[in-house]
């Protein structure tokens, strides 16, 4: 099959073209991966500071005062500092970790290879997309250092809190402007990436790679790209409007009659705070699937590979991914049951929300079905994939409570919600990334990660995240509101302070365990055992080429695909796996 990328570029010479402004999708994928790795440690550090403050709101720590001379004068963190840490934790984790690593990182590296292409459809656009994301991260981090500090309106940035300027609180001046600007730039980068993914997948599949022969990872990257294309466009528009409200005095989101901080706000009239929520969640809900879908793809790939069995119900999985993508755009209202929107529409959103639970349940059943009668190999990547399934179930079932408007009357904005989304879009998605890392590291870096270290890291993290996030559901039952920097003002919360302490300790220990991962990653990159081309006896195209792959992936050869993606343990075949590129006579396809 002719491809636009074919012969488009030769291996570049020189450090800058090779590693910095590279057009190679593999280098760009690794750049995204490390951008995400940096961001996840920033985000995690912020969360540890938050967990410390919540249980020690009056503690004085001398180095806090050194970092934040005003916001932590005397070493005691102010409530506004807590809120800005919280805003930045959520924002950095959602945008610069959950959105970038699974899709732009692994997707960039492996989508072209898994479909037999030499590169992405638009290599220059790909490079621009990464560097635009990098710019967005720099702008976001800069928000910490301007006067007033980072914004305190949360990652959802609801106006008027986020729209009326400095008057609503510290951080709502320049900090909030930079936040919006960063998000807008990030939206631009994501749109470039999404177009590239879709074009690549549609145009550059090699001979024999029909849609229904694609690995499920490719399906999830495709649907994620479509979600990104439609979702980020809306967020970009919303962000621009919010910035206009703040800077040139428009009133898209600000109503008349505001009286803030002893001042009449006379220059705004006729806007709607709910409009922002509709626009934000029209992006925000699909964003949940942007974070989790690639993890589902990786999990499917790994469960099949390491139980040495074809995926259970490949077609059902594809339809489930497609229907999650479609329904994902119709359920945003479930974030707004308590917002004051028309209560009748809540019934429609609730019904659609339960519908989206169905394909999610199908996927879980199919994963168990894949493992059933398998021969499970417990590699570290497989452990993370199994952990993903467990966390996905735990995080998913709490959605059955929250999806009902009637029950949301109590749970909305309590820790029950915090527990729910951290389980599913937070740690389940991160387990997908760890699984992908342990599975693909040999291909990306040509060396193997250390398995015993990996397993220790897995078990500590698995138990750790349960210890951090399941107690949150009980806090929700007690009615603990989220986004509180201190619980001492509410009498009924006196009894749950020990639970918060427990969660904080669990967080410190789990965070410390991540050092094992970092050591493993960097040590193995230099010193790990040399990886063979196909260390896991996998079937997909990336395992048919050397580790790491040559510059143009297939060394000038056009691969031809003859088999489905998960042909494991085929009766009569010489080995227990048939690679997608194996000649057709190895086995007549079922």
């Amino acid at each position, binding site marked *: 099959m002719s491809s636009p990328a074919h012969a488009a570029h030769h291996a570049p010479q020189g450090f800058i073209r090779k590693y910095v402004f590279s057009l190679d999708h593999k280098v760009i994928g690794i750049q995204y991966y490390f951008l995400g790795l940096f961001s996840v440690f920033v985000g995690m550090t912020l969360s540890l500071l938050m967990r410390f403050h919540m249980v020690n709101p009056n503690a004085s720590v001398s180095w806090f005062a050194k970092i934040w001379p005003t916001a932590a004068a005397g070493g005691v963190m102010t409530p506004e500092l807590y809120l800005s840490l919280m805003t930045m934790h959520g924002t950095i984790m959602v945008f610069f970790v959950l959105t970038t690593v699974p899709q732009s990182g692994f997707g960039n590296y492996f989508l072209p290879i898994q479909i037999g292409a030499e590169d992405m459809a638009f290599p220059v656009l790909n490079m621009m997309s990464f560097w635009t994301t990098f710019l967005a991260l720099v702008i976001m981090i800069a928000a910490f250092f301007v006067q007033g500090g980072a914004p305190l309106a949360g990652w959802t940035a609801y106006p008027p809190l986020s729209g009326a300027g400095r008057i609503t609180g510290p951080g709502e001046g320049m900090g909030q402007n930079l936040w919006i600007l960063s998000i807008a730039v990030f939206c631009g980068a994501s749109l470039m990436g999404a177009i590239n993914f879709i074009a690549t997948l549609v145009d550059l599949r090699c001979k024999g790679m029909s849609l229904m022969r694609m690995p499920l990872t490719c399906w999830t990257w495709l649907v994620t790209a479509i979600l990104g294309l439609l979702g980020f466009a809306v967020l970009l528009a919303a962000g621009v409007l919010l910035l206009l409200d703040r800077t040139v005095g428009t009133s898209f989101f600000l109503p008349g009659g505001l009286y803030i901080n002893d001042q009449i706000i006379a220059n705004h009239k006729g806007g709607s705070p709910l409009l922002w929520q509709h626009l934000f969640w029209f992006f925000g809900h699909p964003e949940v699937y942007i974070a989790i879908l690639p993890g589902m793809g990786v999990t499917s790939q790994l469960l099949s590979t390491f139980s040495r069995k074809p995926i259970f119900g490949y077609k059902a999985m594809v339809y489930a991914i497609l229907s999650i993508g479609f329904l994902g755009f119709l359920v945003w209202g479930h974030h707004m049951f308590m917002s004051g929107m028309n209560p009748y529409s809540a019934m429609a959103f609730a019904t659609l929300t339960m519908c989206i639970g169905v394909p999610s349940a199908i996927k879980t059943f199919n994963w168990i079905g894949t493992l059933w009668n398998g021969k499970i190999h417990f590699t570290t990547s497989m452990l993370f994939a199994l952990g993903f399934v467990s966390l996905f179930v735990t995080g998913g079932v709490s959605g059955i409570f929250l999806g009902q408007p009637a029950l949301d*009357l109590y749970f909305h904005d309590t820790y029950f919600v915090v527990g729910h989304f951290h389980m599913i879009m937070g740690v389940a998605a991160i387990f997908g990334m760890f699984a992908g890392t342990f599975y693909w590291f040999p291909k990306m870096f040509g060396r193997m990660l250390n398995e015993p270290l990996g397993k220790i890291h897995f078990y500590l993290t698995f138990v750790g995240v349960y210890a951090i996030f399941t107690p949150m559901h009980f806090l929700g039952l007690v009615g603990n509101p989220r986004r509180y920097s201190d619980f001492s003002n509410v009498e009924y919360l006196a009894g749950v302070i020990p639970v918060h302490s427990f969660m904080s300790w669990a967080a410190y220990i789990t965070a410390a365990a991540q050092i094992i991962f970092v050591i493993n990653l960097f040590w193995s990159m230099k010193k790990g055992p040399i990886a063979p081309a196909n260390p896991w006896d996998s079937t997909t195209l990336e395992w048919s080429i050397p580790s790491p792959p040559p510059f143009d992936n297939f060394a000038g050869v056009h691969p031809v695909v003859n088999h489905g993606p998960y042909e494991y343990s085929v009766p009569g075949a010489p080995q227990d796996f048939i690679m997608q590129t194996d000649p057709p006579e190895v086995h007549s396809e079922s």
Partner: protein
Amino acid sequence: MLLAPIVWALTCVICYFFAVKTWWFPPPINAHGIAYDAQFMRTLIVVGVIFFLAQFALGYVIVRFRDDGGRASYSHGNNRLESVWTTATAILFLGLVVMGTKIWAGVHFDEAPPDAIAIEVMAKQFSWNFRYAGPDGKFGHTELKLINDASGNPFGLDDKDPAGKDDVVSASLKVPVGKPIRLILHSRDVIHNFFVRELRMKQDIVPGMEIPLHFQADKPGVYEVPCSELCGLGHYQMRTTMQVMSEADFEQWKQQQAQK
């Protein structure tokens, strides 16, 4: 392999704490709350069974189907099983939503009874104010530019309007027991949220909107009202109480306030 006992242990610990109710809702104080708790328990049972079975099955396959040599069985799935579990989950999930509809309708579709006591709520960074109409049953005219928190006029009452002369303003909510109440929720700056655990009710308060919320409290007592929508640096301090009192005490309280 080690993963299976860990998954089972975690599952049992979680189920244990849901069963013994160490951390739980406070008792409800009205019929809506009782219905709410019943819907919660129905959902908890469905969800609990799904959760327990799924985690247990995961642990089981990990133990049962670990690699012990030989080949895995070759299968691409089973369409009949797919349609069975698709239909079953769809019926269960949608059934739960349908069963909860009445609770939601009671709060949001039904109008407050005509004899409900109207109370205006004014939320602001970071405190609450409540206004009662007084004996004339009419709220007085208010104006933004008359707002003065320091002199005790958070609503901006216009003292030229006779209807406002007898209005009662209070920093905490007082309601008579067993009487329908209709709150008129206003915010003057950012979004806040009115939440009383014992009522099993929550509602955002949005500037520029007038959102009604009606309820009845059947058990005297003092209940906390913590702001439940991020409103700024003092969000964690934005708390008041709702006192449910006998009708006689309520009338007496109002009279005392009016004389102040």
